[in-house]
């Protein structure tokens, strides 16, 4: 029983952090209608930045996470301005294909840049905290517990911005009708950059939080990115609620699969779940819902 509860808790913890990453992906998709194939590499960037700050500069790991989130927010905004602006200036005919190829190219570039700078080695950052948190019936690693608390705080801040601020309402407006948002005076291009920056920063936050668990290396973002795609598809593309519930479900199913079946197929469970949900609910769990739902 204790082992089962431990796996379930572990699943919820990992699910929360995947949720942070998937929320970033769904935010970018909702506002920009772009599927960001470089999302995993922003996750990787976040992990490396937090590693450099905490291990190389010797600062506190929490500071590493904060710096990673802010740095990738800026990098994300610059990336959007530099690479995606042609889509909104009608400079490309095949907009979807352009976005797909340019973000895919960015992904390859960032992986190779990390290889050049850090090499192919796996690096192990300092955990957020050492020791174990004893909850009576089960024990949770303090590092993971702090990681999930920070993930929930980051998600909470994002949800607050989306639902309670002028910026968030404007982002929701853009996601629903870009032309109408322009007519009321919203600079959809500028806010699109901010949305991309926030989305990338959320991936970076997830990367920095999971770095001590899954280690840091150039292609570390590939599997989490695929899982984020799985989450937003099974939760319904563009649904905030779907991204959060989908991530928790994925985390739990993975952990229970490891517990009841085999740890060897950990990554396969998410795809099995995706196939099953799409068979019975082709539009995903929250089919038809919009980004601001």
């Amino acid at each position, binding site marked *: 029983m204790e082992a089962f509860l431990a796996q379930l808790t572990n699943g919820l913890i990992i699910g929360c952090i995947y949720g942070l990453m998937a929320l970033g992906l769904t935010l970018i998709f909702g506002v920009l209608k772009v599927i960001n194939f470089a999302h995993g590499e922003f996750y990787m960037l976040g992990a490396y930045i937090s590693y450099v700050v905490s291990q190389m500069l010797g600062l506190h790991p929490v500071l590493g996470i904060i710096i990673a989130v802010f740095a990738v927010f800026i990098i994300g905004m610059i990336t959007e301005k530099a690479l995606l602006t042609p889509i909104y200036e009608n400079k490309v*005919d095949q907009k979807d294909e352009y976005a797909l190829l340019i973000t895919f190219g960015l992904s390859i570039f960032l992986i190779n840049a990390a290889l050049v700078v850090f090499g192919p080695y796996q690096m192990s950052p300092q955990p957020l905290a050492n020791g174990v948190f004893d909850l009576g019936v089960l024990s949770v690693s303090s590092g993971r517990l702090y990681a999930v608390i920070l993930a929930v705080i980051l998600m909470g801040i994002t949800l607050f911005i989306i639902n309670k601020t*002028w910026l968030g*309402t*404007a982002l*929701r*407006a853009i996601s*629903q*009708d870009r*032309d*109408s*948002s*322009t*007519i*009321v*005076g*919203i*600079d*959809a291009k500028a806010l699109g950059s901010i949305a991309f920056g926030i989305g990338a920063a959320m991936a970076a936050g997830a990367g920095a939080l999971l770095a001590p668990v899954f280690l840091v290396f150039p292609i570390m973002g590939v599997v989490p990115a695929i899982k984020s795609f799985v989450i937003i598809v099974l939760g319904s593309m563009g649904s905030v609620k779907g991204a959060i519930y989908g991530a928790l479900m994925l985390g739990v199913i993975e952990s229970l699969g490891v517990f009841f079946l085999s740890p060897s197929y950990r990554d396969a469970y998410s795809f099995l779940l995706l196939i099953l949900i799409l068979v019975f609910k082709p539009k995903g769990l929250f089919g038809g819902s*919009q980004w*601001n*739902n």
Partner: protein
Amino acid sequence: MLSVKDVDSGYGNIQILNGLSLEARKNQLTLLIGPNGAGKSTLLKTIYGFVKTTNGTITYDGEEISSAASHTLVNRGIGFLLQRVSVFPELTVEENLKMGAWSFKRDKNRIKDRLDYMYDKFEILKTKRHEQAGLLSGGQKRILEVSRTLMSSPRMILVDEPSAGLSPKIAKEVYQVLHDLKDEGITMLMVDQNIRESIRYSDHVYVLEQGRVSSESPAADIKDNLKEVVESWLKF
């Protein structure tokens, strides 16, 4: 007030407007009529910067706006009512209205005044202020779009097919609202297929064909020749 001079524009390699020139005079409702494909809606989109000009100039109150970014035009006092439904469906009615106040979002008092004004003017919006805009009826959505445009206190509104998709009864109400706006001193440049109804509220009419003005006259004159004008399109 608004002057369009020798404007060419279009989509990609397809040119829709061919040296089009016209003027929308202050405090008047200027109506654009013409057959499908004449370039009426494209003209409004070109004025608002959604379609770029390749030649010619557009000036508003003496300032050139041909290359102005679309989102800045609301700050110059120009609003745009699109032909299609353009409410933000998953925002509430009040959030939609507040988005109309984006250009002065930090001025809480002004926003409150404008909201109160809209709720006085259109009571249905007050009743449904916390409902999602996507759940409103077609006529209510149109009223919300008009109100959202009015939130920024525009001096001129571009209106594209205000009665499209509405029942005759609701369309009549929308025309009455537009007529009231004209009486309040708002200049309008309007495209409409419902000529018989819209011409009653218009001051000046331009007939567009093949991306240019084929004729123009005071609305009062066209009212008498309406049948001939429409018949000439059918021949065309």
